[in-house]
């Protein structure tokens, strides 16, 4: 254990840098003042406002719906992609899965905007957002599932085959139970990415549909009230639960991302 005091100091400073801002947002969500400046007193006021803000509730409903549909679809497609890449070593699929994740988000956003309007002649809205979210989530699920597959001992599959199992039976009774934690973790990850996404949504949302991040964006642009703090706090709480859950299912998920 070589951990000098300088290392501790530098690392703690980095942790503080990461958490101080979020803490401040949370603290001011309970502050009885319109300005995020000085502490005046404790209040639930902003949460009360939040739950009576119709636009915000609609946006939250949209976000949850989009994230559910997008993450389920992405889990299915991503798991298939992960299996296919692992089993058949498909270079093209591997590239296609990683491309939307590896490039700056804005590129996916504008290219999908062009595509939806010029080619599909689609009115931007729920459908375009869901399609866009599936596109960038597939990669994360595929990578997590594939990482899990690599860690499984090949001899297990051979044993199943030797015992006369059909490929489907092998998948159903051997492969699937083994990758299930990774599939669930991937799905949770996809859900989190979808519900938090701003950039791609910004370009593919059109006018009618608002999501939570789009609301937060327009609110902080105008800098209105600590209602933003309240909604941010709740959104962070949701993300926190998702990630903790995901890391329960597959502790290596988080490392798999690289």
């Amino acid at each position, binding site marked *: 254990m070589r951990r000098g005091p300088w290392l501790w100091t530098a690392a703690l400073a980095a942790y503080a840098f990461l958490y101080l801002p979020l803490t401040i947002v949370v603290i001011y969500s309970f502050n009885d003042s319109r300005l995020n400046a000085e502490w005046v007193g404790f209040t639930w006021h902003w949460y009360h406002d939040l739950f009576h803000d119709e636009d915000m509730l609609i946006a939250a409903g949209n976000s949850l719906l989009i994230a559910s549909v997008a993450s389920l679809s992405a889990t299915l497609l991503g798991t298939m992609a992960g299996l296919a890449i692992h089993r058949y070593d498909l270079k093209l699929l591997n590239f296609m899965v990683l491309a939307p994740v590896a490039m700056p988000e804005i590129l996916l956003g504008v290219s999908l905007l062009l595509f939806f*309007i010029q080619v599909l002649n689609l*009115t931007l809205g729920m459908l375009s957002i869901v399609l866009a979210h599936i596109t960038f989530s597939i990669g994360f699920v595929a990578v997590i599932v594939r990482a899990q597959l690599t860690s499984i001992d090949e001899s297990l599959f051979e044993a199943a085959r030797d015992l006369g199992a059909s490929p489907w039976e092998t998948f159903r009774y051997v492969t699937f139970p083994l990758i299930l934690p990774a599939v669930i973790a991937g799905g949770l990850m996809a859900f989190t990415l979808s519900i938090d996404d701003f950039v791609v949504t910004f370009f593919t949302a*059109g*006018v009618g549909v608002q999501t939570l991040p789009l609301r937060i964006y327009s609110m902080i642009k*105008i*800098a209105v009230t600590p209602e933003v703090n309240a909604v941010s706090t709740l959104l962070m709480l949701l993300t926190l639960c998702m990630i903790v859950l995901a890391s329960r299912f597959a502790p290596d998920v988080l490392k798999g991302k690289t």
Partner: protein
Amino acid sequence: MLHLYNWNNYISDTTIERFEKQCACRVVQDYYSDNEEMLAKLAAGATGYDLIVPTGNAVEALIRQQALRPLDKRLLPNLKNIDPAYLDTWFDPGNQYSVPYAYTITLIGYNSEKLRGMDLPLDSWAVVFEPRYLEKLKGHVTVLDSQRELLAAALKYLGYSANDDDETHWKQARDLIIRAKPYWAAFNASSYIKELTVGNIWLVHGYSNDIFQADLDAQNAARGFRILASLPKEGAVLALDSMVLHKSGPRPDLAHRFIDFMLDGRNSSELTNLIGSGNPNLAARPFIQPEIAHNTAVFPGRAQQARLEMLRDLDRNRRRVLSRIWTEIKLR
């Protein structure tokens, strides 16, 4: 159900509720904060809006795109309430497609206390563009984050029309802006209201209704200062927002009812009393709070009115050139 695509905070809730009761229908609103944004979103295929409230130049663009439905004036008896000065505009001769809703003027807003005794020419754009005045205000000035508005103010100060599209004049305006830029705190079209209210920003190039809002907020918070507005003598931009029917809207009948409803003096006055917007409706005057009615930045006199200009839409080449000049302004 009536789908309204409107500016952010551009109608009073009580007005909406009254209309909903009267027509036994629901009003659904989507919002934009910039004409360009609204046009871009419509160009990106947004549909289903019965009613939109664009500014003159955007109305012009939408008419030329044939995106609007002609009005049936038989359904709009209250049209007689509108001040004739705001009818028959260049963007819609004969008001075939549009009915005036409200207007804002882009002018100078300032903090009454912080600027006291500084001896600044608050009745001129010079205070926004001339370093000799800006020196005293460094870091406490914001200008609108809008290519058209800022260029228009600079062109006005230089003595040109806000719609001048001579590229050498644009370049003069660009140089003027670049010279003044180091003294400005930010390009800002939204949060400057709050910054004015709390006293961080002392002088802004902003919209009349935003400045009114800041003043209201400052008074409510008992800040001990007022936010005043001043219409520069060189002239300024007038943005006349009109109600138009979008072709994609499924309920033109409701839209007509809504327009006539909004042309009623009392309904129309509620917006002005809420946000301090200019009101082209003569029947609304008696309902408007006296303090707003006597504010010359909201209701300018005839002589001042003559110095106001409405912006025209730019063609694609001009848009590209302006965008390039804007990039240059940001970089330098």
